[in-house]
């Protein structure tokens, strides 16, 4: 057992802020290992120390193992928190940390290899008797071979990065005509995002729900779960809205799936925070994958379970986290998270970059904002476009939805377009309200960009007044001679 004095953070944006806040409260200093493009971010401002480890390109900085290790060593950090994405599920990075005498905050390299690599994970799952989605996970990555495999499994199939997660490099193939282009594209994205072009193919369940269990292994090797989340609202296989607990599980299903999640985690000797993802269709569940890291959507679990997963990760790495066996683990109320993307919802979600103007997240009970940027910061095109997460908690799901809609409307983000109007439409959709949405919900109902509403009379008058004031009272120029700014 060893208390950390200083932890390095091999990440950026809101998750870096999340980790720094936990460290601050625990009296631990932080070192942000950042790229040169991330000087104007909240994490940079609040970290105890900052070390620039490379240029904007992720392969030069956030994916660069030697640079991260060097930075951590130079700063005197005793441990590294990898956050999510980037190197968080990279076993080689965990090994490199070991070798350098730095504690990697996460499961062991061996566990990451066994559970995090989807191929090994599927083998382990078979041993544990967990149901799997039919698929191809072979070494032969020739596109022509992959095409044959896809045909064998039967369309629709999904192509996904073997080393990936979070929807990156995932493609849905519905017809053989487009199969070649999609497989190639998935391989390219896998390479640029995860450093390996390896992909595999899986039967696509076309009316399934995405249900996942938060698992945790304490310092003594005990593994438990902190109940479930539902993340069926996905666009291009990337989660947009997550909630805890799922509105779709019966007590019996919840029990079975929770037991399955713990079983596979135990087989992998899991330590720290992880997630076992399932697809649920027609009352049957299938193992999707295991994410051997903190999840983007971990806050909804924290809200309903009354836990702090990041602190638990750090305490586990210190060797002093042990479950209290007397404590009942029961979810309280309902929590929803919306991911705020800097993108133009009126153009189908193309990224929107630029300098942030005013950013206001209105305070209130049961509201939590995880944000990596403040007014004056620049949203650059180099990284994921998720700039913040809005999390709400309330006593019931319907109240949580109502609260989320209100909070999103009341939040102010100037300088970049965001998906907030899109999120509000989703939250108000009857399928979401009834909790019956599947992973195809978004592509079914929200395939097209949403329509930019015309300005009302009042809105036009507000614009006129604002422009007059900002021009120091210069009048006579109707803004309607200028044009809408689409991005």
């Amino acid at each position: 057992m060893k208390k950390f004095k200083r932890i390095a953070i091999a990440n950026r944006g809101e998750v870096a802020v999340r980790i720094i806040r936990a460290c601050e409260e625990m009296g631990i200093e932080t070192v942000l290992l950042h790229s040169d493009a991330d000087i104007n971010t909240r994490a940079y401002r609040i970290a105890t120390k900052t070390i620039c480890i490379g240029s904007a390109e992720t392969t030069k900085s956030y994916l660069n193992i030697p640079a991260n290790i060097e930075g951590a060593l130079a700063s005197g950090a005793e441990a590294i928190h990898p956050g999510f994405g980037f190197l968080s599920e990279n076993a080689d990075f965990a090994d490199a940390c070991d070798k350098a005498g730095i504690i990697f905050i996460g499961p062991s390299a061996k566990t990451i290899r066994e559970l995090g690599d989807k191929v090994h994970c599927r083998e382990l799952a078979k041993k544990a008797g967990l149901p799997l989605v039919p698929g191809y996970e072979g070494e032969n990555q020739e596109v022509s071979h992959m095409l044959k495999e896809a045909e064998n499994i039967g369309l629709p199939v999904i192509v996904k990065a073997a080393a990936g997660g979070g929807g990156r490099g995932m493609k849905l193939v519905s017809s053989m005509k487009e199969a070649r282009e999609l497989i190639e594209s998935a391989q390219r994205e896998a390479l640029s995002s995860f450093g390996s072009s390896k992909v595999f193919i899986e039967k696509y369940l076309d009316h399934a729900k995405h249900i996942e269990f938060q698992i945790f292994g304490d310092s003594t090797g005990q593994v438990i779960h902190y109940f479930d989340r539902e993340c069926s609202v996905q666009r291009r296989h990337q989660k947009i809205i997550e909630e805890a607990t799922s509105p779709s599980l019966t007590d019996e299903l919840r029990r079975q799936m929770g037991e399955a999640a713990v079983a596979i985690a135990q087989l992998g000797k899991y330590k720290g925070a992880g997630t076992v993802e399932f697809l649920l269709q027609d009352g049957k569940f299938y193992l999707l994958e295991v994410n051997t890291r903190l999840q983007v959507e971990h806050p909804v679990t924290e809200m309903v379970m009354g836990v702090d997963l990041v602190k638990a990760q750090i305490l586990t790495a210190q060797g002093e986290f042990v479950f209290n066996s007397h404590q009942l683990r029961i979810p309280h109320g309902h929590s929803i998270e919306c991911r705020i993307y800097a993108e133009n919802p009126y153009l189908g979600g193309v990224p929107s970059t630029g300098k942030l103007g005013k950013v206001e997240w209105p305070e209130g009970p049961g509201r939590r904002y995880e944000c990596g940027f403040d007014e004056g910061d620049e949203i650059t095109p180099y990284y994921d476009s998720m700039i913040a997460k809005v999390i709400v908690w309330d006593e019931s799901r319907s109240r949580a939805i109502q609260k989320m809609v209100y909070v999103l409307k009341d939040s102010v983000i100037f300088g970049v377009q965001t998906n907030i109007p899109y999120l509000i439409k989703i939250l108000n959709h009857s399928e979401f309200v009834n909790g019956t949405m599947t992973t195809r919900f978004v592509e079914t109902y929200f395939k097209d960009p949403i329509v930019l509403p015309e300005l009302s009379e009042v809105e036009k008058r507000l614009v006129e007044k604002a422009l007059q004031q900002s021009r120091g009272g210069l009048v006579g120029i109707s803004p309607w001679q200028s044009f809408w700014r689409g991005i």
Partner: protein
Amino acid sequence: MEIKIRHNGIDHKATVQVVKETLWVHYKGRTFAVEARASSRKSRKAGAGVSSDKVFAPMPGKVIKIFVNLGQEIEKGQAILVMEAMKMEYTLKAELSGKIAQIECCIEDQVVLGKMLVKIEPTAGSTAKSAG
């Protein structure tokens, strides 16, 4: 900045700010943006992206694939090129049928928002849909 107007006897409050020549307005739970530059007459209609006979870059990013050649006949909806930004790929498609008249980018080009990438000469009879 907070502003207030009176319209039909009712007060309306809004939060507004000019950021880099764009006016941002938050009013009644909705945020919208308009060009603040008085002299701007240049049309940057809703959206860059594919607007009538030109394909614009809908975001800053990298061109990673071009599917068409100069002079090639294309169908409405056909993929023109692929851009990458923020680690995601975006396929830009033709909004009308015609012939490729101009290609203003190369593979691996970093392009700025709104750059015209490809120009299409429409087939007679094919009308450009208004991008509103």
